[in-house]
């Protein structure tokens, strides 16, 4: 037993060298492209910082104070929570419905449908956003033509955020479909056969078998979606620039605006760190929930 423990898991020295090389490479990559920028940004959050004009002047907690005192930031955080909650929910529900439909044996052209659903996901967001901008045009837009409505989607505070959420759902639902479809294929068929013999109908099978078994997959989608949606800014940048007024400001859009429009990198860094902490908290919470689910299983 001791001998087994002492034995190196890798067979040859070349494997050890390869392992060390790969691990070192990855470490260097993460240090260079993740850790160093994070540290630099953190230090920058205590400075009046504009790298384009070489300005880097210590200003203590001013940037942090500005973040916590900014009503725009907290309004944007509220918007971000609502945006992320609706988009994640829609992504999961739509993903579940469509993946279950595709999983059905009666569906034909499965590959074609799967490709079609996934196509928006691989299309660049900027391109998609510009096309949707035309669709939202109050005079010539396809959406108003279809609905027979006269809605100024992007400049009416009642619809502007809805317009961004709709675009995001359309763009991203395919991702959930493909992941959940993979999850559905991995479910044990014998369980379903047994449930069928016991007299369970389709709805019961979905409620008591499919959903619980897909829970880890759904949690994975929820976590990755939350992280991604808390960083959304491209549709806002293309469609509304945060307007009308500040109605569609999202937290990440403020970061973009402060860093790359107004060149206040210090302030943008402080906002980034607050957002980072919130995302970390939410992710931790999700993992905790996920862990509890595993224990329950």
């Amino acid at each position, binding site marked *: 037993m001791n001998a087994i423990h002492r034995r190196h898991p890798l067979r040859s020295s070349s494997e050890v060298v390869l392992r060390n090389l790969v691990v070192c490479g990855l470490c260097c990559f993460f240090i260079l492209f993740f850790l160093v920028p994070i540290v630099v940004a953190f230090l920058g959050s205590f400075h009046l910082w504009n790298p*384009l004009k070489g300005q880097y002047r210590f200003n203590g907690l001013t940037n942090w104070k500005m973040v916590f005192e900014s009503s725009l930031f907290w309004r944007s955080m509220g918007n971000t929570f609502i945006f992320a909650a609706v988009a994640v929910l829609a992504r999961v529900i739509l993903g579940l419905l469509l993946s279950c439909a595709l999983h059905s044996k009666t569906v034909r052209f499965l590959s074609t449908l799967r490709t079609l659903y996934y196509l928006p996901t691989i299309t660049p967001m900027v391109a998609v956003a510009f096309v949707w901008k035309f669709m939202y045009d109050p005079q010539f837009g396809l959406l108003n033509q279809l609905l027979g409505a*006269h809605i100024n989607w992007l400049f009416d505070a009642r619809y502007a955020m809805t317009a961004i959420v709709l675009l995001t759902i359309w763009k991203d639902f395919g991702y959930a479909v493909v992941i959940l479809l993979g999850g559905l294929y991995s479910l044990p068929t014998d369980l379903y056969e047994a449930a069928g013999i016991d007299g369970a109908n389709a709805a019961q099978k979905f409620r008591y078998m499919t959903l619980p078994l897909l829970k880890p997959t759904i949690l994975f989608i929820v976590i990755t979606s939350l992280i991604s949606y808390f960083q959304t800014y491209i549709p806002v940048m293309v469609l509304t620039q945060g307007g009308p*007024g500040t109605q569609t400001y999202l937290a990440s859009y403020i970061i973009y605006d402060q860093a790359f429009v*107004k060149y206040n990198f210090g302030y943008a860094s402080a906002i980034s760190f607050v957002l980072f902490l919130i995302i970390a908290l939410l992710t931790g919470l999700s993992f905790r929930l996920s862990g509890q689910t595993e224990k329950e299983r």
Partner: protein
Amino acid sequence: MKKHLTRILTLVIALALVFSAMACASAQSAILGNAVQYDPAQPVNDGQPISIELWYWTGAANLFQAVADEYSALHPNVTITLVENPWDDYWTKLPLALQGQDGPAIFNVHNSYHENLIGYMAPYDIAVEDLENDFVGVSAHVIDGKVYYTDYGMMTATMYYNKAMWAAAGLTDADIPTTWDSFREVAKKLTIRNDKGELVQAGFSFNGGAQGDVLGMQYQYGQNLFTQDGKVSFNNEAIQTVIQRMKDIYEVDQSGDYNFGNNSGDNFGQGMIAMYLGWGFMHNLLKSNFPDTDFGSFEIPAPSEDVPYAYHRYNGESTFGVNKNASAEQQAVAQDIVRFFLANDALQKQFCLANSVFPAKKSLAADEDILNVSSIAVLANHIDRYIWPGPMPSAVENNMKIALEDIFYNGADISTALQSAEDTCNQELAMGDFVSVEPQYQYAAEAK
């Protein structure tokens, strides 16, 4: 005799050749310019080969190619490499490139990025007095007695109108409005609604860019944009009056609608609206994007027939910047190109026409070709009554945009929205080094 005749003939031919060669040489070496002069006969870099880069943003490659071609023809030892970048990338890449040793020796400047560039720029090797003698608006660019860039042209807002709609409404040139009251009456005549009362043609629209219009119209009431202590002033009577009038044009006169198109420039080209207040660059943009739209221009109306403190603000189209971190030899060539550009009326004219801007060069103020451009011509009588507030950071326009959208689309009270925007803007301005040059305006003493 025959021998003498041949000799005389040979001498005459030889003399003719010498004279024509001299004439050619003098034509090539003719000194350009008035106060700022350029002598093409002066060798550059002692005639030794040298390469430099000239950076510019996408949109007018032919202009920069013309500068490079004409200069290289005079100085074949100089190789100019043109480097083009899209607008957004340009303003990130350029300052970073200028920090090192390998940045471009010469580059195109836009004054809205003044703060990020000025630290990397070398002052012009040209006397300020010479620049002032040849160009208007130079004094606003003088920093500690030196000029780092100035304007070759002045761009401002002019009113564009659709000629077909104008005629269809029974309007003639005599109806061109000079006051806001008469403008509102004309706008009403140009508005068309269908049987259901729905807008078919707006008399006037400011949708999707009103901040550019508003930030300038307060000057008509003698109100500067910046206070003497360097803060922005949004929440004042003049701006409130301007915004209220814009609201009234839509809500009282019914000459337009907040939801009738989201981009008044494009909507004007598409034939949805009859009048539109746009900046100079729109002239060429409309011509190229909407060639079927026949349009004319008139000067922005004023509150009364009296000449106001200023009709609007202008923004200068800037001359080249010279990289102070480039090698001494490259800087010398860059300085020489700047002088060549400033002294060369033909190039100045080419740049002004391409951007539809009023020439800053005094010798071109009455140029026929330039004054044939309607959006430029309408400025000719009052060009001195346009004010440049300085290289305003984007925070000013961004915060005014938020205030206007809150007022027009979210139903916010004018004063509350302006105060909120003013507070945020001043907080953001405090992070930079912007200083207004309004006090240097020729008629600054007339301000409230």
